[in-house]
């Protein structure tokens, strides 16, 4: 059984990871999609619903 300090740091690590996932997931998909697509689209077409 891990000690109290280990548990607390584990919970902190999970919390930080969750926050990174929350704010970083959509930018990550857009970055991966933008760099891997063939042909590369323009940024304005990526974000705007009308362009």
């Amino acid at each position, binding site marked *: 059984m891990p000690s109290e300090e*280990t548990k607390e740091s584990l919970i902190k690590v999970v919390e930080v990871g*969750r926050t990174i*996932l929350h704010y970083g*997931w959509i930018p990550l998909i857009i970055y991966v999609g*933008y760099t891997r697509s063939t042909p590369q*689209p323009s940024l304005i077409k990526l974000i705007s619903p009308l362009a």
Partner: protein
Amino acid sequence: MSAFPVQSPPSSSSTKSSAWSPFYAALSPFTSTYNRFSQWRSDLALPSPGSIENLQKEVKSTHLTNFIFDGARADLTKTLSANPAFQVTHSFSLASQTAPSSYNFGAVFANEQVFMQGGVDHEGSVNCRFNRGWSANNVTKMQAQLSSQAGHNMIQLEHDYTGRDYNINAKAINPSPADFSGIYVGSYLQSLTRNLALGFETMCQRPTPEMTEIATSYVAKLTSTDKSWIATALLQQPGILQATYWQKLSEKVEVAADLQVIAASTRRDAVATLGAKWDLRMSTFRAQLDSTGKVSALLEQRFAPTFAFIIGGEIDHFKNAAKIGVGVMIESSTLTPEEMGMPVPPQPPSYP
């Protein structure tokens, strides 16, 4: 000078094989039995049973419960790349009786090994989906729902292995590495004959480290030899039985029935649902009737390859209530038809 003394490979392998051969000889009855068993098993040529998660997939795609909505909605999908697939979606929904107006931005990226999907709504809630296929049979999945409100977060890790005639799946929902609380689910489905598959799903709930609840449900699936009909039964722990039947009547018509019986000591209830789906050239029509007095229908009409119109309605005869939904789906692309690899018809994004 090498820090690690390395033996020359040929000598090590030859000494190894001679040293191990008595062990192999001693084990040979077991290995030959195993080989005979696996040979016998492959001779049976049992089909893959699918997974427990997809047990009622056909019924769910025929019934309109997962497709109906009320109010108005618009989905603008933009395909930015065909291979690897990259799509962004802006969806607006308003005037619903049950949910407030919302805006959702979604992005999907997929290639042969990886599938990534994300959505964010106007309140900042994010949902994520990530699938990684290691081989044709091994898939690891991650699903998460993250919001700024505490207590509304969900994360699910899953691994799925499909064998020749069986499927194994393990899931962890909100697992905590500190005290191993969370929900853990394991399931196994095995084809016994060409038509019959049996399986079980065990769920272990640990809301706190001191409490552990285990519940097992049992599953049976009967498929006709030509796969034109599928019957399933799911028996859950406190007396819940769900039975479904799906049949493909012709190339364009599918019908499905679903019966849910709750026979617990505290509550006795049953709901039956009948539904049909017509797949026509430019439209899909679904109609459904259930024993709680609800009659509903949903029409998805595609006027052009890039423009679809959806109208759906439901009347609850017992409660004297009704709801209606209209929607448009507009698909655009920055690609030329040649780049998209035409003539592939654009797939409508599916919204449960």
